């Protein structure tokens, strides 16, 4: 290259190193801690000191005539703790401090991150800015809530005393939810695999009914299917007992349509050479499916199938529409009946916890299986 082609001025690769990468990171943490931790802290303070309800709260909780402030509704003082703590000046101060600090870290982080001397410090600066954003967003949401009618919400949804005595019901509900979901899944797998095998048939007469089934069950809401088939079984078929079994059947029929598509995709993802190798050894179509193709397909569809299963667990809540008997209540049916008895929606916090107790371990397993399948050689050995 000729001498003249080189520039006089070397390219600038370094700006001045920026100061304080760790401070931005620490600032971000502090901002978020002030906002979220501040809420927990004030809540803890009011509850642990068992402060007397503020007059305005006490009045609305008793909902009664003047002079009867002491007669709070069930669990009313606990609700007032929540409300009073949230409405306190201390809470406002913590929120605003956190948001201001967070906003500062956003500005500092994004202004300075490019000038950090190394990658680690650059990542610290960026992390600080991101935490700052979270502090501001959470702060805004909490401030907005604080401005509203905290009391009426807390009275209906955050009155934990109403959860008393619900433990047994939730445990039974979880048991029934799990039975419904597992039963539906098992049936769904059998129906799904059968439909998938029909779907890949070269005979249109076999494909058409499978297609119609799948389109019907995927194209209509499960809640409609529960009502429609519930009545079909009960009145149409005069099948008057075993509602629980009928519900499993309907859930399985629905699940079958979804898993059919999963299985079909799985079967078609197995290389053509596998079928050819099997057939060239003299295995019939059925035997090559049974021993060679389907076992490989099943391994491949485990993650998407488990995903459908998690969805099915939550969808069991829809059977509440059919009016199971108390012993057969799944989580949601139990919650709904508890709600109508107590006339307080706080029970639904327990509902969420019960569903999470069932789904979170499963989601964890799904992720593990998925990771194992993905890391393995072609993912199918063993």
């Amino acid at each position, binding site marked *: 290259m000729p001498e003249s082609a080189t520039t006089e001025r070397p390219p600038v690769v370094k700006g001045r190193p920026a100061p304080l990468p760790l401070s931005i990171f620490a600032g971000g943490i502090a901002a978020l801690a002030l906002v979220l931790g501040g809420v927990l802290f004030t809540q803890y303070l009011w509850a642990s000191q068992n402060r007397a309800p503020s007059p305005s709260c006490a009045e609305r909780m008793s909902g009664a005539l003047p002079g009867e402030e002491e007669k709070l509704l069930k669990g009313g003082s606990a609700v007032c703790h929540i409300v009073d703590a949230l409405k306190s000046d201390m809470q406002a101060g913590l929120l605003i401090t956190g948001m201001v600090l967070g906003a500062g870290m956003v500005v500092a982080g994004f202004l300075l991150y490019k000038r950090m001397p190394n990658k680690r410090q650059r990542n610290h600066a960026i992390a600080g800015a991101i935490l700052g954003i979270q502090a501001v967003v959470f702060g805004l949401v909490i401030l907005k809530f604080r401005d509203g009618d905290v009391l009426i919400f807390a009275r209906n949804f955050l009155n934990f005393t109403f959860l008393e005595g619900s433990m047994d019901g939730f445990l039974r509900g979880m048991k029934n939810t799990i039975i419904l979901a597992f039963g539906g899944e098992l049936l769904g797998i059998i129906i799904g695999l059968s439909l998938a095998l029909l779907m890949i048939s070269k005979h249109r007469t076999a494909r058409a009914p499978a297609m119609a089934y799948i389109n019907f069950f995927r194209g209509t809401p499960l809640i409609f299917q529960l009502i429609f088939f519930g009545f079909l079984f009960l009145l149409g078929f005069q099948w008057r007992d075993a509602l629980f079994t009928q519900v499993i059947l309907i859930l399985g029929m629905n699940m079958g349509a979804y898993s059919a598509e999963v299985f079909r995709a799985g079967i078609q993802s197995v*290389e053509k*050479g*596998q079928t*050819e*190798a*099997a*057939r*060239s*050894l*003299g*295995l*019939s179509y059925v*035997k090559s499916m049974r*021993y*060679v193709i389907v*076992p*490989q397909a099943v*391994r491949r569809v485990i993650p998407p199938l488990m995903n459908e299963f998690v969805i099915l667990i939550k969808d069991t809540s829809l059977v509440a529409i059919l009016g199971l008997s108390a012993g057969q209540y799944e989580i949601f049916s139990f919650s709904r009946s508890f709600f109508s008895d107590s006339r307080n929606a706080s029970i639904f916090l327990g509902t969420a916890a019960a569903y999470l107790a069932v789904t979170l371990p499963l989601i964890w397993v799904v992720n593990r299986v998925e990771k194992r399948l993905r890391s*393995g*050689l*072609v993912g*199918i*050995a*063993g």
Partner: protein
Amino acid sequence: MNEDGSLVRLENIHKWFGSNHVLKGIDVTVHEGDVVAIIGPSGSGKSTLLRTINLLEEPTEGRVLFDGAEITDIRTNVDEVRTHIGMVFQSYNLFPHMNVRDNVTLALRKVLGMGEKEARERAHQELEHVGLAEKADAYPGSLSGGQQQRVAIARALAMRPKLMLFDEVTSALDPELVKEVLDAMRRLVDEGMTMVVVTHEMGFAREVGTRLIFMDQGKIVEDGNPREIFDAPKDGRTRAFLSHVL
């Protein structure tokens, strides 16, 4: 054996893929003990021709006779016929969810109805033959390409076929792994196996083939003694192809 000594006879085979005319009237007879090498440019229809022999491709027109019986007849039990014709593929096509032994014994057990013990013994024999007896418990994914291909050969041979089809079996292999597969095939030739081999290995075709078929554009251009064709190709297309690949 058939009275005229023919094991496979293809009569006027045509194959269309949609509007694509891939085989244009093929007549070939393979005799017992023949080692037929099929060469030709890509797209000449040589793999398709090979695959019509065990009906992995159904010919659009024409007849395929195996051991004197017309297997293109709709009433033929094709699965039964295929147990007599071993096939080895370019991409090995071992079953990845089974270990090597189960790959070899699957068809023995499920098609021939052989007992577990007998099948294992035969698998051991065949794997030993290709030098892989100690890999019986391994999964295909942990083997090299050459090892996988030798297992595929053992799997096909375990059925004790009368005919072996090889479809570019070394094309997917790293160069240093080609020899072990070709060696396994050479041993098979020495044992007198009837083989039809689609290949790009000209050396192999020349040395061990008893017959060479050159195909181009869906037709057989030359069919004869490998040495004669390599040394003095009669057709201009054969000459052009050989000058490119040699």
